[in-house]
């Protein structure tokens, strides 16, 4: 059945947002050492402009964008560059990173760069400012935001969607940002409007964030063409394709971009950062994340310096004895952490820790049966793929067929299919692998 302001299919996993929803954002302490990967975003790594042993001030640019598909990096704390070397990251691959020894003495003051004024700046100036500020999608994909703001030739944008849905269980960062940085959000919207020339703004919120929606409505500046729309709770409401479908009833064509339907979708935290940083010409040196889950002692929403290692974070918040699984982001899409010494990056929206109690019943532990064609995955897939068929094909390594006839590459790995599968088939895992193989094949060809 089709619901208003929502999309068909999808699932309703337990939300688990209550533990952290009401906890105000707190500043997270500075770790003695921060690791800042030069590639935290999709696209080209940034070029380091600091030397080993050099002293840097918090907020200072330590690496410059290398081309358009790249963004700058800023020092998350005042300190000394111990070395520039490879560091492990969540993806498992080693990435060139700046190792920063923080100076305990430092006041960690951030000094302004050259500001960018909403009224006077031209769209292109704003776009370059955003790039200089090192802003990327904080919603998960960590896609350079300024790239999104420059739609392909001949594609005009009429609607700007601010994505405050946050459909993943456990995560409450966007919720807090909307409550505590309302002004920043609206300031960000001003920049985005000016940059894109869009005539219409919609802030998308899920029904479990009524409070935030109220506040946004209350404090909406009269001069802004903003509507706040509340859609029913359903995963993965937040996926931009689905937000756009739910709010505007427009379908981003398969393999296409939001720009194809004249919209652009920016995460609310991203927006707030734009509004907070650009007036002062600063860059991202920290972000808001939710540290939660049954495995965490002091759950909460923290403004945490980029580059803090997961180990330090967990040491600060305290972790349960029987902690058994840690992943970045939420339980639906968040990749599991195998090595605690990886840094938190701009794309990290949270740290969630499970104990043996949860993992005992989590997918990994349940017996895997053959597909019984129950069609639950088909009923769940928000993109109307056929995970059952895809799964069978994946098992038989029919990767080309999967891509050609069953739209494998459309899959955005939301995990809804795996979640509902009574045979506990690790479908998404299959699909990630399959997509890799297909990309390999296509590059090989």
């Amino acid at each position: 059945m089709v619901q208003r302001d929502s999309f068909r299919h999808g699932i309703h996993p337990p939300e688990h947002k209550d533990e952290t929803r009401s906890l105000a954002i707190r500043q997270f302490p500075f770790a003695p050492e921060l690791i800042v990967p030069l590639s935290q975003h999709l696209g080209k790594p940034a070029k380091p402009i600091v030397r080993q042993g050099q002293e840097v001030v918090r907020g200072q640019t330590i690496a410059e964008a290398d081309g358009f598909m790249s963004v700058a990096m800023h020092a998350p704390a005042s300190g000394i560059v111990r070395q520039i070397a490879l560091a492990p990251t969540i993806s498992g691959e080693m990435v060139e990173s700046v190792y920063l020894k923080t100076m305990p003495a430092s006041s960690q003051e951030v000094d302004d760069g050259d500001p960018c004024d909403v009224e006077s700046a031209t769209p292109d100036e704003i776009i370059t400012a955003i790039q200089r500020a090192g802003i990327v999608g904080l919603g998960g994909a960590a896609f350079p935001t300024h790239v999104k703001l420059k739609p392909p030739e001949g594609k005009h944008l009429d609607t700007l969607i601010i994505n405050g849905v946050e459909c993943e269980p456990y995560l409450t960062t966007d919720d807090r940002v909307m409550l505590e940085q309302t002004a920043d959000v609206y300031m960000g919207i001003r920049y985005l409007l000016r940059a894109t020339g869009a005539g219409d703004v919609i802030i998308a919120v899920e029904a479990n964030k009524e409070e935030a929606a109220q506040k946004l409505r209350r404090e909406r500046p009269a001069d802004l063409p903003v509507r706040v729309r509340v859609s029913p709770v359903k995963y993965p409401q937040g996926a931009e394709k689905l937000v756009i479908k739910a709010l505007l009833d427009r379908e981003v064509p398969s393999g296409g971009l939001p720009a194809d339907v004249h919209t652009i979708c920016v995460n609310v935290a991203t927006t707030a950062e734009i509004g907070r940083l650009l007036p002062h010409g600063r860059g991202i040196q920290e972000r808001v994340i939710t540290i939660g889950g049954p495995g965490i002692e002091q759950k909460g929403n923290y403004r945490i310096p980029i580059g803090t290692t997961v180990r330090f974070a967990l040491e600060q918040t305290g972790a349960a004895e029987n902690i058994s699984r840690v992943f970045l982001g939420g339980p639906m899409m968040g990749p599991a952490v195998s090595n605690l010494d990886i840094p938190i990056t701009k794309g990290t929206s949270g740290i969630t820790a499970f104990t043996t109690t949860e993992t005992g019943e989590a997918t990994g532990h349940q017996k895997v049966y053959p597909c019984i064609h129950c069609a639950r995955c088909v009923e769940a897939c928000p993109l109307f793929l056929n995970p059952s068929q895809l799964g069978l094909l994946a098992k038989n390594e029919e990767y080309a067929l999967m891509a050609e006839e069953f739209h494998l590459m459309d899959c955005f790995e939301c995990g809804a299919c795996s979640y509902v599968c009574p045979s506990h088939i690790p479908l998404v895992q299959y699909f990630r692998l399959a997509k890799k193989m297909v990309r390999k094949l296509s590059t090989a060809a």
Partner: protein
Amino acid sequence: MTDVSHWSVFINAALINNFVLAYFLGLCPFFGVSAKLETAARMGGAVSFVMLVASVCAYVINLLLDAVNAPYLRIISYILVISSTVQLVEMLMRKLSPATFRALGIFLPLITTNCAILGLALFQTNRGYEFTQAVAYALGAGAGFALALVLMAGVREKLDLANVPELVKGTAAAYIVAGILSMSFMGFAGLGR
């Protein structure tokens, strides 16, 4: 045989006494090309077509043989005339409609001397069908063969993705599916009366 209705002849040949599932005729194409649906469908078309040709040939030959009263030449003349006629049709098809030829042509050589075809000719003779009845019989047999072949192909493609034991894969599995199909077709018994 003048009294049996064309409908009844058709249904009987297509469903009740299906050539593959009830008479075991044409097993080679049935198992040989039922692995992929696409080829199966085309083979079905080719067989139906050749059956029609064969039926007409057989009817004419039979008249001639009765005229010269040489029944002992039936088998040999059936097989020679049918196969050469199909060759002829093949050549014509290649000329007139290359598209059709590409679709069905490649199968024709395989099935010209195939038992389902000759079987059709012989059965229609034994049953003493009139010309129109013979045509109905050929159409029914062809339709039934194509149906069985297509159903078989569908199931086999499904089984390709299932975890069928090595020992069973291939011929054995195909025979079992054929058996189950044959059982299911028993549901049609008694139709068309």
